[in-house]
């Protein structure tokens, strides 16, 4: 385990108390008849208990049981809008959707708040205030486009964009059409190179791991003037982390992230030698919490260092999502001085595949 400085006990207690306080505030908001969303007010009416009275701390959220994935798929998205925000313009951001109905989450200001908060974790020396950004990644129904643009604007820059449609990529992969995937990737990178050549004010980059690799096959980040890379969207292994820092960055800062439409954005812990390039994230508490739970008993948080399934709890005034089991697994990470609450290590897809019989001798 890494030898990161541990937070003092008092710091842990303060963070926990703030979380519990925030939970109580949110229960009053989401289950108040004048402020709560139709979905949660209806839920509470049918559940027969009042979260405003019975939820006094974060741990009490266990009473809700697991949040059902299907609740977010289809139907009128307005049922999720808290009455307290009636009349405000509402965004809908999607996640999933390669097949079937995607999950939708309503948004008003959350993406701005999440990315403005995250901005504080980026070092100014590498992500200079006022510098322009290039985002190479998914836009469309995802919040990423607006979020990265807001991040750039929040830091005084402008964000240039190249779009990638991940659903089309997944379709091609399922069809086994890898050459078309390569062609599409080249098409995306060609556009990025054009923008980089045309705008020498671009110093900061957001992209996905695969697109970062593809970009670096074509150019030197240093020669292109890139000083900071914010990278996320798909799984990142420790080896990729090392490879990116040692062989792709050429001195630029590498900021990996774990995030999604449902949770928000987790900050990364800068790597230390003892981490062995593990990719370690901390949720943006108290607005969201990530826990690592026993896959066979998702109410039980595993020990530090142990592997388990990722469980999200989103706690914003716009969106309340308790105890959602993600399709990821990871190791539970101890709090650190910068983040006095639990983190996660090496997030990767959760899978318990049934192995088929292999035909043939190979």
């Amino acid at each position: 385990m890494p030898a990161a400085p541990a937070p003092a006990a008092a710091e842990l207690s303060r963070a926990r108390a703030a979380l519990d306080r925030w939970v109580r505030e949110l229960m009053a908001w989401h289950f108040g008849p004048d402020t709560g969303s139709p979905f949660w007010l209806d839920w509470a009416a049918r559940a027969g208990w009042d979260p405003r009275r019975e939820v006094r701390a974060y741990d009490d959220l266990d009473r809700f049981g697991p949040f059902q994935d299907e609740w977010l798929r289809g139907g009128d998205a307005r049922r999720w809008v808290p009455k307290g925000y009636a009349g405000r313009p509402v965004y809908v951001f999607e996640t999933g959707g390669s097949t079937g109905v995607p999950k939708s989450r309503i948004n008003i200001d959350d993406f701005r708040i999440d990315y403005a908060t995250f901005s504080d974790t980026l070092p100014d020396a590498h992500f200079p205030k006022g510098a322009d950004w290039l985002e190479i990644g998914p836009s469309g129904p995802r919040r990423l486009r607006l979020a990265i643009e807001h991040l750039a604007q929040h830091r005084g820059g402008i964000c240039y964009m190249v779009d990638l449609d991940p659903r089309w990529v997944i379709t091609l992969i399922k069809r086994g059409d890898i050459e078309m995937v390569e062609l599409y990737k080249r098409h995306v990178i060609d556009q990025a190179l054009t923008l980089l050549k045309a705008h020498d004010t671009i110093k900061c980059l957001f992209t996905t791991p695969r697109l970062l690799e593809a970009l670096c096959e074509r150019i030197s980040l240093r020669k292109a003037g890139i000083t900071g890379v914010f990278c996320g969207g798909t799984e990142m292994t420790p080896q990729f982390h090392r490879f990116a820092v040692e062989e792709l960055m050429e001195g630029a800062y590498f900021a990996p992230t774990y995030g999604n439409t449902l949770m928000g954005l987790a900050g990364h812990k800068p790597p230390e030698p003892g981490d062995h390039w593990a990719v370690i994230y901390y949720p943006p508490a108290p607005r969201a919490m990530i826990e690592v739970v026993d896959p066979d008993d998702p109410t039980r948080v595993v020990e530090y260092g142990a592997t388990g399934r990722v469980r999200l709890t989103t706690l914003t005034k716009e969106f309340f999502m308790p105890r959602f089991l993600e399709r990821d697994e990871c190791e539970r990470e101890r709090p650190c001085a910068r983040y006095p609450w639990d983190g996660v290590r090496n997030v990767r897809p959760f899978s318990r595949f049934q192995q088929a019989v292999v035909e043939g001798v190979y």
Partner: protein
Amino acid sequence: MIELPILRWGRPYQSVDRVVVPHVRTREPFVAMSQANHGLIRRDLLRQAEPRARLQAMPAADLVAAAHRAAEAFLHDTLPLGGSGTQSPQDYVEQVSATTGMPWASVRRNMAKVHGVLSRVEEVLAGLTRGLDLAVLDSGIGTADGRMLSFFARADALGVVLPSNSPGVHSLWAPATVLKMPLVLKPGSAEPWTPLRIIQAYVKAGVPAEVFGYYPTDHAGGNEILRSCGRGMVFGAVASTKRWKAAPRVEVHGPGYSKIVIGPDAADDWERHIDMMAESIANNGGRSCVNASGIWVTTHADRVAEALAARLAQVTPRAADDPDAVLAPFADPATAHRISATIDQDLRPAEGGDTRAARDVSAAARGGERVVSTHGGTYLLPTVVRCDADHPLANREFLFPYASVVQVPADQLPDCLGPSLVVTCVSDDPRFRARFVASRHVDRLNVGAIPTTQIGWDQPHEGNLFEHLYARRAIQRLA
């Protein structure tokens, strides 16, 4: 625990991501293989032209001599493991056995096979090139029988996604270095040893280390190797290789579905061939694509099946170091149970009045379960199934000695066989044999009672490596 690195054009690299493979018998961690990430492979493979230029600058005659030295080094020398450790020949035998389950004796036979192809590489290549003087590869231009010839390389590197079933399979790509082709290898997850040892033997023999890439990686990494190299070979199950079937620059080596056919003129003589059949089925533990997985006859099928089952029942699990050991335990016992369950499932008559019959003839001969745990491992015992030609078990191949015995009318042969890597045709009837010679289904034909596992190195096997790597161009010049 042994640590195996990645070789990035010869340079050892320890990855943060490692896959630990346990000892088949003790289940203790045995070897940790550094895993190459996708981007690292892609980045390295941007530089294929440099190693190709290094090999192109070496005379073919020198490379043939290097292959001879490599053959001896492979068989006799203690060689580096790429990182800090070394490996003696006996270490190699025990290590292959530890991760694949293969008995030491089988590993040694396969070792001899690799030695054979390297020590007789000019004979092997003569078979592939129809006797071309390899010096033509030095300049690209030569003459044969007074005619000008010119060849050019189709690629700057050969990428190979390798299997774990048996070390002998590496004989197929090992001559590529003599053909001046850099190698980019993805070793099988349970058999990283042989490709690494072949590389180290070549390096000891004087071939530059930078013409070899060795990338333990996942399926996506393997696909990246095949995509990024101008020419490729892939070994694997049907499902994992089907995407490359339509790509002529990648040679696909899937299941062999090799067979023995007893012609109508030899039908009454079947007893004489039982040992040849058993050898074809059980040699190398039934782990090769050249192992027979079907015996097709025109009469006496029940008697052939009974006799074969009795003969194969003598093949029983033995300790890894027993010189008579043939069977290999499964690295994952659950795999053995799943394969056995699949066979049992198909033996049961299907619902809806399916009357196609199948019978596990070995059940009585072995007198117990098909899956056994002994000598610290889990084994599948040889299994002979008697069934009709259209039964699901008629044309199957598994990683243990398995064969169906199928009776068909003579006039349906060989069309009813389906694609078959090796067919041994036992018949003296010229017209019957001629049908096999003409068949598009038969990749390698043994005429006469030759075991399917007997390889002639002067014959191309499942593709022609030279033609895969080189193309001939038309050429003329002023005298």
